[in-house]
Every structure is written in structure tokens, then in C-alpha cells.
């Protein structure tokens, strides 16, 4: 067992436990975007940043990837952590404002301004879909390619993948494209409350058959509820 201190509480956890697991076990909330239980930790979104102190030096690390080590002191919500998370959320809002998950996190952290040039991207490259495809579906149909600005996710050579079983697992875990908030306007990227729910996948031809293989189909579900809305 490894003994460490999280927010002043003494904890002992098993070897191999990450700081995120230990903190959540104690009930300290840590937000995540690129972490899903059952998939290997990746550390891409940096939202789960916490402050650790080792050898009387403090630094920020991602709790989802950092293993618990003996004598470590962790703070999950210090002012340094909060300001870093706010900036990361502001960056996320600036590139991907249509994700409900990001909007919700931003409002939870009180991010009320976005000072960068607004972009409307569909993907934050968190890699959940890649890991889902590889680790849970054993398909490895999609992967990362390129680096820096040119990084993207897709099938090899953008051809229809032979190993893809159109299971839709990639879409299920996606924090950016699944629940979309399209209400926000260009001049006000922070919506605060989600009024409009429509899956973006409907507009994408590539995923048409993927959608149909899902049961029940998300698109159909929304259509089902639409008349109900009208009746009200």
C-alpha cells in the first residue's frame, strides 16, 4: 500500500492507482474529458490537472496519468489548479464551443469570457474514440495521424475501413461530437444553458450507416420526441 496526502487527508491506496482514482474514491471531484473508466489513461485534455508537491517543489500534473507515489502531497482544487483549468476550458471553448460537455464544465468553473479568436472545430483530439476502438472493440480502425496543427483522427488513407464494424463506440464516448450545443452564436460562444439538441452526425454522410446500426438510433429518438415538443 502507498500512503499519500490528498487535500490534507491521509490516504493509502494500492500500487498502480492513479491520483484521479484515489481522489474520486475520497469524493474529491476532478473534471475529465479524455478519461473514461475502462480505457487506458492518455492525458490529452489536461482538464484533470492537479497540483502535487514532491521534494518541496510544487508542479501541475494530470491526475489521470500520474501514479500515486509514497509521501506525495496532492491538492485537487488549489488556486493554481483552478486558474489552469479555467484557462484550459477557455482554450477549449475557443476551439470547440458546440460540445455540451465543454460548455457544462465551463459554466461549472465560472468561465464567462473567451478572449481568443473563435473557431468552430468538431474534435478536441482527446483520443477516446481511438482508445475505444483499439481497447474495447479490438478493431483499431481509426488512429491519429500528423502532428501539431495537422493532427487528425481517421481511418488509414481516409478509406472506408475493413475492420470497422460500425459499432458506434467511437461516437458514444466522444465528449465533443455527441451532445451538441448549437445554440450559441458567433458573438457569444458561451451559451450557459443548452436549448438545442441535435446530433451533428445527421449531417455527415460518412456516418449514416453507422447511425442506423445503433439501436435505438439517436437521430430517430430525437425525431420521436419532436412532435411531443410541438404538442406542448
Amino acid at each position, binding site marked *: 500500500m502507498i500512503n499519500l496526502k490528498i487535500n490534507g487527508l491521509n490516504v493509502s491506496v494500492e500500487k498502480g492507482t492513479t491520483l484521479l482514482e484515489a481522489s474520486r474514491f475520497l469524493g474529491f471531484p476532478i473534471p475529465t474529458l479524455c478519461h473514461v473508466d475502462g480505457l487506458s489513461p492518455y*492525458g490529452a485534455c489536461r482538464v484533470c490537472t492537479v497540483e502535487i508537491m514532491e521534494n518541496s517543489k510544487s508542479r501541475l500534473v494530470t491526475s489521470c496519468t500520474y501514479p500515486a507515489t509514497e509521501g506525495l502531497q496532492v491538492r485537487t482544487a488549489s488556486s493554481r489548479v483552478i486558474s489552469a483549468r479555467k484557462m*484550459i476550458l477557455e*482554450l477549449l471553448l475557443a476551439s470547440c464551443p458546440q460540445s455540451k460537455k465543454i460548455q457544462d464544465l465551463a459554466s461549472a468553473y465560472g468561465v464567462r469570457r473567451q478572449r481568443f*479568436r473563435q473557431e468552430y472545430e468538431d474534435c478536441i483530439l482527446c483520443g477516446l474514440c481511438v482508445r475505444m476502438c483499439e481497447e474495447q472493440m479490438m478493431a483499431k480502425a481509426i488512429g491519429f495521424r500528423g502532428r501539431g496543427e495537422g493532427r487528425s483522427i481517421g481511418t488509414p488513407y481516409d478509406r472506408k475501413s475493413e475492420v470497422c464494424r460500425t459499432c458506434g463506440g467511437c461516437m458514444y464516448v466522444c465528449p465533443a461530437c455527441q451532445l451538441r450545443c448549437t445554440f450559441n452564436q458567433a458573438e457569444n460562444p458561451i451559451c450557459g444553458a443548452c436549448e438545442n439538441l441535435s446530433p451533428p452526425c445527421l449531417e455527415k454522410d460518412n456516418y449514416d450507416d453507422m447511425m442506423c446500426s445503433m439501436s435505438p438510433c439517436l437521430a430517430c429518438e430525437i425525431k420521436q420526441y419532436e412532435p411531443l415538443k410541438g404538442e406542448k
Partner: protein
Amino acid sequence: MKRLCTIEDFNTLRTELSPPDAGQIPTIVIPASTCSQASGANDLIRIAKRELLGRGLVGRIGLRITGCHGFCQMEPNVLIEPEGVFYPKVTMDNMARIVESVSRGVVLEDLLYCDPGTGKPIAKAMDIPFFAWQVRTILGQNEKVDPTRIGTYIAEGGYKALSDVLAGREADEVIGEIKESGLRGRGGAGFPTGLKWEMFASQPNNRGKFLVCNADEGDPGAYMDRAVLEGNPHSIIEGMLIGAFATGASKGFVYVRNEYPLAIKNFGTALRQARKLGLLGERILGTGFSFDIDIVRGAGAFVCGEETALIRSIEGKMGEPRQRPPFPIEKGIEGKPTAINNVETWANIPVILRKGAGQFRAVGVEGNTGTKIFSLVGKIRNTGLVEVPMGMTIADIVDKIGGGPEDGVPIKAVQTGGPSGGCIPANQFSLPVSFDSLAAAGSIMGSGGMIVMDANTCMVDVAKYFMSFMKDESCGKCFVCRKGTQRMHEILDDISKGQSSLEQLSLLEELAVIARDTSLCGLGQTAPNTVLGTLRYFRDEYIAHIEQRKCPAHVCRQLNTYRIDPDICVLRGHGCGACRRACPEEAISGELKHPHRIDASLCCKCGLCLHACRFNAIIVE
């Protein structure tokens, strides 16, 4: 050459290769590294060979093709041994004359290097200030060794350290020697090499352990590792062999970027020759010690210089860093313990064991021992590779070795550590060069890039350039590094175009600090350094860009205004109209023999008129 089966065989070969009269016959030394070849060294070699054969001088005059000597400003150069006469910028015609003069034993005064201050010719390389102030422990070997002939390296004392270690030293003893020498990793972070080896040696060896030489040198303007790999590959092989003996490693990798074709070729030749002689592979020199090295070619991603990304790249995966701990010392290539050292660190190992830790410590300062190679480039008179003892001041490097500013424009700053480093302003040039002092000044030692900037350099432009490099080279795994560098570049671009505000500047600073704190690997954590460093020392330049909409160095073109001095235009240029014809926007009007003028409302600030005017009539404000 026959395979060496015992240490005695090696000693016999050594005495055969270095006869007592060695160094007596005059030898023409021509460097033929990538940089020399680019400036025409291959032609010189051809002519030298033709002249030697034609004049029947073979056997009376030697010819040695070596790696880079370091004085890149004066390439292609020729060195005549044993006197050490140095001929800079040799042309094809002069090469024949040099061969002829060597046969007569005279020095050609008119071809010698002239001191820029006094104008007097200097005959010997060691009297030239560029060489005289250096301590050339590593680079000095480049002059003596032909990288494609293992014999020249052995004759210069090469593999002696290895044979001594194999003959009767314990692994602990070797690690103790390295620890005592105080050698710190030359890759940038300055981790004590002896300590790393000790930790590595204590790792279990049941499934194999790996040594890696990190030769993925990607900083813009830095090429120290290339010079060592091309010029003296055997020193790295020897270093790695000693490292493997001391730590019990089973296999070595040299990770070289594919952009260094000559380095890969020379290193491959060196590996083949060492294997053939029995200095590499199974049962080295007949002892029980076995070790082999493979070359892994990198695809030129800057991030693969980071050790965890490098390991993934060697494994054949995408070059992406991962969280440390676990450190590569515990879990590296294929999950096995791996120790990674820089090219220059490996090249220092045989030197330490040959000379002894005490003598190595004597150079440099306490805590930062030995020498460090810098690639001195930028707005300076003598560019090239310089090897200086640690603790030398920046002023000494810039003024004494570098020869001071080019064209008399005062030097403003020195950028160290490449895109991860920072700028040191001229008023801090008394700072000694060491890992700790540079870090305290807000920069880093890095792997040894040193870019000199003069008053004509705009610091916003410098920060923008490095940020643009980082934005392209970020692997993109972690969001803060990928988007953070893009956003910082965006704000810097706006500042350089005069479209920014002070709020944007404070946002830039805030983002830079958080990107440094929250990024995953060294690349992201150091990417904001150029922004933070230039803001620390040159904030007034940023303010001038934002408030006055002016670039003090006139580099950011969008902030310049162009006008034509009517007197110069008519009196000197007779209204030639070259600027009018060059202007893509037809913003310049005027007739022959009359002053031309620029319509500011049409001017696109491209600066073409400035280059078109031969009379300096265009004034930039």
C-alpha cells in the same frame, strides 16, 4: 584488418598504427562534413588527389579527409599538418597552389586568414582568435580522425579507454570515475550522467537493458551533434561500449534523424569496421563482454528528441511523449530499462576515462565541469562550432571567439537553447555559461544552440518565429501544447501586425505561464520560454508594437511606413523608376528625372521597392 581476439592483439595493432615517426610527413587535412561539402570541399579533395598523383607526391605528403573543424564561416578550409597552417575559403585554383607549396615546405602568405582588426595574416590555426580561445577536447579530435578509417581513430588513442576498462576495471569503478568527473548530460537538462548510470546499473537485467544515443538534433541553428557523428563516430561507439560495460546493458541504439544522411553513412561505416575488428558484437576483444549497436533513423519530428517520445519512435510507434514516472530508467523500450544520453555526453566518456576524472574536472567550474560545444550563429562575425570550458562568460564567447558584431551593428541579445530556450540581453553578457546560471537568467543551456541577435532583430519577430516552429512541431497529443502554441502564435502574429492590445499581451503572458505549467512533456513546458524570456527583457518592444504601432527594428513589415527621399531620388538616381516598376500595387508614381512618391493609401508594405532602389532613396520609418 584481422579480427582482434585478445587485448594484446589490440595493443599490437595500436603500436603498428602509430609508428614513432608519425606526424613527421606533412599532411593536407580537408574537412568534408555536410557543411564543408556544401561549400565545395569535394572539389578541393578531387584537385588535391589529382595534384598529389600528378606531381608524384604520394607517400611524401599525406591527405586526410576529416569531419567538420568548426570554423564554418571560413569553409571550405584546409589545414596543413604538422605546422597547423590554416587556409580559409580555399578556391579550386588555390588548392593546386597549396599542394605545390606544401611540397616545397613554404606558406602562401596571400591565402592566409587575416585578422579583421589589424589586417595582418595569421598562419597557424591555433593563433587565430576563433580557435585560440577554445578548449577543443571533442572537436579537436575531428581534425585528427578520418571518420571512415577506424585506424586513424585507434592511432589517436581511440578504443584505448575501452581496452583498459576491459583489461581490469570493475563496472562500479567506471561509474565512480564518471560520477567523480561531474559530467552532466549535454542534451539540455544537465542531469548528472554518473548518477543516471548508477540508477540504470541497479535495474534488474533479466530481460535485457538498452542504451540509447539521442542524436535527434532538431533545434533551428544547432548542429553540434551532427559534427561529432560525422567527424568522429568511433568516439560515440567507444563511449557506449564503456557505458554498456559499466551498467550491464545488452543492446544499444543510435537514434539519428534521417535529415543527416552523411552522419548515418559515416556511423554505419564505423559500426561495420568496429564489428569487423571485434570491437563490437559478441565477445569483444576476446573477453566475456558482448554489446552491439543499431542505427534507428528518425523521421525528423522535433518531439522525438524528448526521451519518452524517442522510445516510442524506436518501438515503431507514433512519436508521442507519455507521463513520467515511470522513467525510462525503469520502463523504456519494450518496457525494459533504458538509459538515454546525448551524442556529446557519449563522446565525453572516452575522454574522461583516457585522461582521468581529475583532469576532466580541472576544466570548467564547480558543478559544471568539462567543455561544451555551442553552435555560434546569427549576426556575428565568426560563425561556427565552438567548444568552450563551462563557466566562460557569454561576452568572451561573443567577442573573443565570435569576433564581435558583423557590420558594426551593436549586439542586442543571445538566444540559447533553441526554441525551448530564452534570450539573454547584452547587459547580462558577463553571465558564465553553465546549466544553473542560464536557467536563473530565464533561459536554458539546451543542447548548445547560440543565436546572436543585433539591433536589427525584432524580439517579437523572434518569439513569433520560434512559436511558429513549436506550433508545427508539437506532437499534438496534449491539448494545452497543441492549442496553446497555436494561440500564442496567433497573438504574436497580431502584435507583429499592429492589431493587438495590451489586454491581448496580458492574455499572452497568462497563457504562456499556464502552458508551461500544464503541458505533458518538455517540449510543451519549454515552448513558452521564448515568449516569457523576451517579455522579461524586451517588454518595451512589445509595448512599442502595440501602443505606437511601430517596430523599433523595422522588421515587422506591416508596421513600417515607406517614403522616398526626393533629393536622393533625383540627384543620385535621376528618378530611375525601378521602384515604380517593382511595386505590385502601383502605389508609386513619378517620371524619369523627377522625384517619385509613394501613395501610402495604396502601399501594401511588401518592401519590394526597398530592394529595387539601388540608391537607398527609400526610407523606412
